[in-house]
């Protein structure tokens, strides 16, 4: 064993070795020039003796080896030329074996051997066999590895492969394979042995050094992969079993991993496919510490690339049942390698899934099978906690989403939700978001209730609180983002068929209702609007389909809606509920369902009375109520009176005077609907306006009293506009003089105001006046009407 030495020592030894080589090479060259065989052999052996050192690390040894290698090339040229040394090559072959030390002897023998083969005086297979056999004498791992790699190198172009000069007669490609296999086997044994060479303390260093040497071993596999004439049959019967036998038997983690990698990389895909069973069987026999998952992943990657390369090869995959075999192997690996962390198993599943998706995109059952296996594995374990494993599961679940841009496909996978069940809440949400994003991106429409059911089952992490979730931890922004996504998702659920759509709505509702107070404000509105869209659709198809037999009637839908909004109002989220009630009421009105609309209004009013206390909210609510009410034309006189009365009443009871004023003049529209068959109660409209004026006045005075200035005349101008509106619409109770006096009033107000504030004409007022003038000048019917107003 090499002593533990510092870098400087090693450098020194290397320098000494190099000097030794150069020294002897000098004399060797002199002998070469003199064609003195005896001296040549003497000095070349001395030179090669430098390679007997045990002091160097593999890297340094390689340096030394390369120098000797260069010299050996010269020697080979000399050996080739019989006229220079005067000995038949067969005698030379014996002569070099007289060397007392094995290492120089073997290097010389390999060199002469290559000349011997080239001379064709002996069958190449015999020479090769002899060389590979004689090399056994060097059992020191590093020296042996380099010697054999020298042998591999000098013999590389002399193998009796098909198409080479050395093939034919007794020399077949089989002999070439046999030779390389044997050299490979021996090299691997040497390589594996390095680890047993020293005390455990230098294990890590050794591993590193071994890693540096691995390509020497792997080179043989490359050669095997390149030998011309190794057909599938031979590969199947000889090459692969022999290589795998060595791989499995060496029982070394590093070697097994590296060699499996090599095998996968150097041999053609087609061979892998045809020998899948053998290859996979070997994978299950590797040491438990070997990272089988990477090996398998690489294999599957290669195979799927191969499958992608040409559609012609797909039938091969089917023929060999690639999927079943891979799936089995993975199952076995996972079962047998108990120490494998769960992330490993998950990675394997991801690879298998990727493989399936690429090779058999039409076989959903395969995908489901993979997921099923994953479920089985996951359920045998405690709750998943490894973040990396979780990531793999997410990847596993995302893969089908990416592949099948249509989410619907994924929804048919029965094991999909079961896999999701094993995610922790956070990841579950992430996954749910991914699903939604996929739907959004692909603009896919989910159109049956069953699928919706499945889908909501999948994204339940977003829909409701899962056990043990701590609300405090949630980031508000994330939460909103999530809920907005859900809201968007609801709009993607659509079916032309009203019945099915209704079912969908019910399903969605069922799920959403479990969402709790924080989610409902986000999720209920889209549901409501989705339902209202259905209502409108039914309506447009002819609202006359009524009756108990027809499941999807507007009436039924409204019932559902009513219940839904009720939940929302108790959340509490009264403003939102109020809006929704009003929306529903309007829709109901469009469907000519007076009682329903009335009921919605009632609900809205109750909410207003009981829940909406904030004055600003009240103002908004009033305007909404008034606006909606104004448009609804389904009510009979009585109902309408009740509602308008209520609305005006509320308006007058608002807290701030300006709000009161505005609400009241808005109410005036309730009595004058500019439709053909609209209500045209001009008198009550005027009453509203007058009342508004009074309030405006009061507001003005209050302002005067409290602040010393009456402030702008905006309210008056606004009321003036209302007057003009009704005047234009032909309300008989609005006279030009009314308008005239209002204008004067405003003018007065502005002048009285001028005393203490700067003169500034109210732009709104100015443009109002301009409008009046404009109408007068325009003439015509309207012009005549306006003519009566004197400014």
């Amino acid at each position: 064993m090499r002593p533990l030495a510092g870098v400087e020592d090693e450098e020194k030894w290397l320098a000494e070795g190099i000097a030794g080589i150069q020294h002897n090479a000098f004399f060797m060259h002199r002998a070469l020039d003199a064609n003195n065989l005896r001296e040549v052999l003497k000095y070349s052996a001395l030179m090669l003796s430098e390679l007997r050192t045990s002091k160097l690390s593999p890297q340094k040894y390689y340096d030394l080896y390369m120098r000797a290698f260069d010299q050996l090339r010269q020697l080979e040229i000399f050996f080739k030329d019989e006229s220079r040394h005067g000995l038949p090559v067969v005698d030379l072959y014996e002569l070099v074996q007289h060397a007392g030390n094995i290492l120089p002897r073997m290097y010389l023998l390999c060199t002469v051997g290559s000349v011997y083969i080239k001379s064709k005086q002996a069958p190449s297979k015999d020479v090769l066999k002899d060389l590979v056999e004689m090399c056994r004498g060097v059992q020191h791992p590093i020296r042996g590895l380099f010697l054999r790699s020298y042998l591999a190198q000098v013999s590389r172009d002399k193998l009796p492969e098909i198409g080479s000069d050395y093939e034919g007669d007794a020399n077949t490609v089989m002999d070439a394979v046999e030779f390389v296999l044997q050299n490979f086997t021996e090299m691997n044994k040497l390589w594996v042995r390095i680890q047993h060479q020293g005390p455990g303390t230098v294990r890590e260093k050794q591993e590193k050094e071994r890693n540096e040497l691995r390509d020497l071993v792997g080179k043989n596999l490359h050669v095997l992969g390149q030998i011309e004439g190794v057909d599938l049959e031979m590969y199947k019967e000889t090459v692969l079993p022999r290589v795998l036998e060595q791989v499995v038997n060496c029982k070394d983690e590093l070697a097994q991993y590296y060699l499996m990698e090599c095998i996968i990389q150097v041999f053609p895909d087609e061979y892998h496919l045809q020998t899948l069973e053998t290859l996979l069987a070997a994978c299950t026999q590797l040491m438990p510490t070997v990272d089988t998952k990477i090996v398998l992943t690489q294999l599957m990657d290669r195979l799927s690339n191969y499958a992608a390369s040409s559609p012609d090869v797909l039938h091969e995959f089917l023929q060999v049942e690639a999927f079943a075999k891979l799936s089995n192997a993975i199952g076995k690996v996972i079962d047998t390698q108990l120490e494998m962390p769960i992330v490993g198993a998950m990675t394997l599943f991801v690879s298998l899934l990727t493989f399936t998706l690429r090779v058999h995109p039409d076989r959903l059952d395969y995908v489901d099978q993979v997921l099923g296996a994953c479920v089985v594995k996951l359920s045998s374990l405690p709750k998943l906690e490894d973040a990396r494993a979780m990531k793999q599961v997410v990847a596993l679940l995302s893969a089908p989403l990416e592949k099948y841009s249509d989410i619907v496909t994924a929804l048919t996978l029965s094991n999909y939700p079961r896999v999701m069940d094993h995610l922790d809440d956070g990841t579950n949400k992430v996954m749910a978001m991914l699903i939604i994003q996929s739907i959004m991106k692909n603009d896919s429409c989910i159109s049956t209730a069953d699928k919706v059911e499945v889908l909501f089952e999948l994204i339940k992490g977003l829909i409701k609180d899962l056990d043990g979730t701590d609300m405090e931890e949630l980031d508000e922004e994330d939460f909103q983002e999530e809920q907005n996504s859900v809201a968007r998702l609801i709009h993607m659920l659509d079916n032309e068929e009203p019945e099915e759509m209704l079912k969908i709505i019910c399903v969605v509702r069922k799920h959403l209702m479990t969402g709790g107070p924080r989610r409902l404000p986000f999720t209920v509105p889209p549901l409501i609007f989705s339902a209202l869209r259905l209502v409108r659709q039914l309506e447009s198809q002819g609202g006359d389909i009524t009756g108990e037999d027809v499941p999807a009637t507007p009436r039924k839908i409204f019932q559902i809606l009513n219940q839904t909004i009720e939940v929302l109002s108790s959340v509490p989220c009264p403003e939102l509920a109020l809006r929704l009630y009003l929306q529903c009421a309007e829709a109901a009105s469009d469907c000519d369902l007076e009682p329903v609309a009335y009921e919605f209004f009632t609900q809205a009013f109750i909410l207003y009375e009981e829940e909406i206390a904030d004055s600003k909210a009240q103002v908004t609510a009033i305007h909404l109520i008034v606006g909606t009410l104004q448009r609804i034309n389904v009510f009979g006189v009585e109902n309408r009176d009740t509602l308008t009365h209520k609305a005006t009443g509320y308006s007058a009871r608002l807290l701030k005077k300006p709000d009161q004023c505005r609400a009241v003049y808005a109410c005036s529209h309730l009595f004058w609907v500019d439709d053909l068959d609209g209500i045209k109660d001009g008198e009550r409209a005027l009453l509203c306006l007058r009342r508004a004026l009074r309030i405006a006045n009061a507001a003005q005075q209050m302002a005067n009293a409290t602040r010393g200035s009456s402030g702008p005349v905006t309210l008056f101008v606004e009321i003036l506009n209302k007057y003009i509106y009704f005047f234009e619409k032909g309300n008989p109770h609005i006279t030009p003089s009314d308008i005239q006096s209002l204008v004067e009033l405003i003018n007065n107000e502005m002048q009285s105001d001028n005393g203490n504030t700067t003169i500034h004409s109210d732009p709104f007022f100015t443009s109002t006046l301009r409008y009046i003038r404009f109408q007068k000048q325009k003439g015509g019917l309207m012009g005549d009407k306006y003519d009566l107003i004197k400014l």
Partner: protein
Amino acid sequence: MNYLLGAFKPACNISITFSDGKNRKQVPMKKENGQTALVPLFQSQETISGKVCIDPYQGKKVEHNGVKVELLGQIEMYFDRGNFYDFTSLVRELDVPGDIYERKTYPFEFSTVEMPYETYNGVNVRLRYVLKVTVTRGYAGSILEYQEFVVRNFAPPPAINNSIKMEVGIEDCLHIEFEYNKSKYHLKDVILGKIYFLLVRIKMKNMDLEIRRRESTGAGANTHVETETLAKFELMDGTPVRGESIPVRLFLAPYDLTPTHRNINNKFSVKYYLNLVLVDEEDRRYFKQQEITLYRLKEDASS
């Protein structure tokens, strides 16, 4: 003065040549002074013939009581220096007593000589073959001349040649099984085999296969045993794991080996062993030694 000097110089120059000296294979042989010289190679049952040439120095005559040539097979123990033991001794008289005035050549021949033992040059013992020419003189002392040659004998491949297979171990520490393809190897052979590790609980640095020569000389209490490691061949670098098998392929040609000699003339034995050595990181050695028999196989005409 001249005369005196001349008295110490040999009176003549004696040379021994083999009749097929030009064609005969020569092999290097280490001489006593450490230098290597090429000497002719023979094997048992060969006829050794040639010429002895006696060339007196100018103007001198060599008076002698007879000239003879001997073929000797000798075993020499170094610890008993100077004491040769001749296990083979053949004599040919070349000349009757008389005087030699000028260059004189004598042909000789030893036909189908039995030379059962191979030339051997060990740590403590030497077995050699030599042609010895003696010009016998009465008073001045005899003039001697030696010509060494090497004898190598070939053996047929053994009829029975089992593999060596064995399981050894240290309880709860190391357990191996090894196998060498044969138990008898010729000198240019290659040892094939494998080492199979059944249990490895120690950290190993390397594993070598050694070829050891065990030379024992003398007998009884005076036995001297000398072991040399002739080859050290690294089979493995580093620590294997259980179940690993390491190949063995050792070419014998590059090493200076001789055949196994068992109890040569009751004087010495040379045996070879394969020694499997495991060295751990604390440089402790674990080994297991197995005898192998080496023999000399009749080589092809080409080599």
